[in-house]
């Protein structure tokens, strides 16, 4: 028996969330007294796995797996899970993991709970704590299959070092035919994504128009942050849909979320509430965001933000 962790990689390097799911797997393995096995695709440097607690690492190096394909990947992971007799499989909440998780669940006839925010409340029966109602509440869900898949929420557990003795295996897997074709991939390079960001800077309608977004972008740049926006801002085409955060947009679970000129409607707050520290800049002291925030500045964004950028630059130096 084992706990299987899918350690995701990109361009032959582990993603940050790979080490978070591994840290979680290690902590769970101690509770359940099982070995934690990682499965990775196309990886050269595996030091990070030992450093974060892997007992065993299975690596599938195959150039046909260079592009992520949900069905093929899930099939490979399911084969490893069967071979390793895994009872629990841990995935991150990246777009790719959310894509493959239900397919994997069917292959293994397992249950699946996404949005898990903590170690299980009990391991037998397996009861996990997860968010529901788009972060407005939590539920304790009992997963009662032979094999259960846990989808860990981004940034919910953190990355923890735990130097371990790892045995390494290279595995060759006969790939199934995936009849979906990837025509092209467009990826913005050199920009932090909302999913990976420690800090997110978000702009709302209070910024008056897209021409003022340099305020958000400059602030994001000083802090190495990702940029986001409220729903009406993306609906009006001031910013791309991919930046829309909230109940009907992307969830944000960063360490720091700074909202500029965002009123803090219930749908907006729902999506960003998992962020650890929230800051609001708004000229209306009655704006609902002040009830959800940890720190607030009542003031005009056009005065406060340039000052903040200037002072942060000085602080960073």
């Amino acid at each position, binding site marked *: 028996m084992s706990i299987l962790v899918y350690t995701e990689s990109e361009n032959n390097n582990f993603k940050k969330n790979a080490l978070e799911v591994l840290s979680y797997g290690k902590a769970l393995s101690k509770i359940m007294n099982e070995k934690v096995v990682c499965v990775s695709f196309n990886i050269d440097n595996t030091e990070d796995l030992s450093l974060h607690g892997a007992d065993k690492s299975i690596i599938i190096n195959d150039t046909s797996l260079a592009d992520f394909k949900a069905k093929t990947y899930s099939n490979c992971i399911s084969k490893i899970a069967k071979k390793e007799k895994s009872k629990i499989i841990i995935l991150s909440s990246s*777009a790719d993991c959310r894509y493959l998780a239900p397919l994997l669940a069917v292959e293994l006839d397992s249950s699946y709970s996404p949005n898990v925010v903590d170690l299980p409340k009990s391991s037998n029966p397996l009861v996990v704590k997860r968010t529901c109602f788009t972060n407005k509440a939590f539920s304790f869900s009992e997963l009662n299959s032979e094999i259960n898949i846990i989808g860990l929420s981004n940034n919910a557990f953190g990355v923890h070092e735990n130097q371990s003795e790892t045995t390494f295996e290279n595995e060759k897997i006969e790939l199934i035919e995936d009849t979906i074709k990837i025509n092209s991939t467009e990826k913005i390079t050199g920009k932090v994504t909302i999913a990976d960001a420690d800090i997110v800077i978000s702009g709302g309608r209070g910024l008056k128009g897209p021409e003022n977004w340099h305020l958000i972008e400059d602030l994001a740049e000083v802090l190495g942050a990702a940029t986001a926006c409220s729903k009406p801002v993306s609906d009006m085409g001031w910013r791309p849909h991919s930046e829309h955060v909230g109940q009907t947009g992307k969830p944000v679970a960063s360490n720091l979320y700074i909202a500029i000129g965002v009123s803090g409607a219930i749908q907006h707050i729902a999506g960003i509430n998992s962020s650890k520290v929230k800051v609001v800049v708004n000229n209306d002291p009655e704006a609902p965001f002040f009830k959800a925030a940890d720190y607030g500045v009542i003031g005009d964004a056009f005065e406060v933000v340039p000052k903040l950028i200037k002072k942060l630059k000085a602080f960073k130096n």
Partner: protein
Amino acid sequence: MNILVCISNVPDTTTKINFINNDSEFDTNGVQYIINPNDEFGLTRAIWFQQKKGAKVTVLTVGESSCEPIMRKCLAIGADKAIRIDAIPTDGFFVANQVSEICKKNNYDLIIAGRESIDYNGGMVPGILAGLLNYNFVTNCIQLEIDQNIAVASREIDGGKEILSSKLPIIIGAQKGLVEEKDLIIPNMRGIMQARQKPLDVIRPINIQAKSIIKSFEKPKPKGEVKLVPSDNVDELINLLHNEAKVI
């Protein structure tokens, strides 16, 4: 082209979430229900295929009779036919298995479900359905074109998008971006009148067990007061974020 759109009946986005019976049950008292927003994006795209390409659109939900108002709304928006599988939707596996029974009996070329519902956020139904039927599947779909029997779909990925193509039949997990907000259809009087005449079939569920059970709910801890920083003292904000919150 035959299109099936899976619809989830969810609490309005402004709903205050409360629980009853020792936090074991969601308090539905006074809750308004809406079509799950992700499903509505999918339905809107389906209606586009109906209007431009003569597709036939069926909407389907797994739920009790209390879901019928939103199914009528889907018909008023333009769906040709509605099906309700008369069961409490206990979890994503249960729902996907119920839907797959209907799919096996009908030849749908395109099946659309929201990428997730905004109540239980399972994000399972379209993917599990795809696994059960062994159909191709694209989730987080932000663009969908169909030409002859080939679907071209864009999937939102972390930090970009990916364009995929597949033969029909295909299953799509819909989300914001698939249609523009302004294209969402508000039913008019004529649509509402017509919807009354359209078929809404009620079907008995198949016998299947859920794979998960919600034992209890918990509300987030109440938040402390916001700390206000004077707008002419951003140094203090930087100081707090650095020394107190330790996030910069």
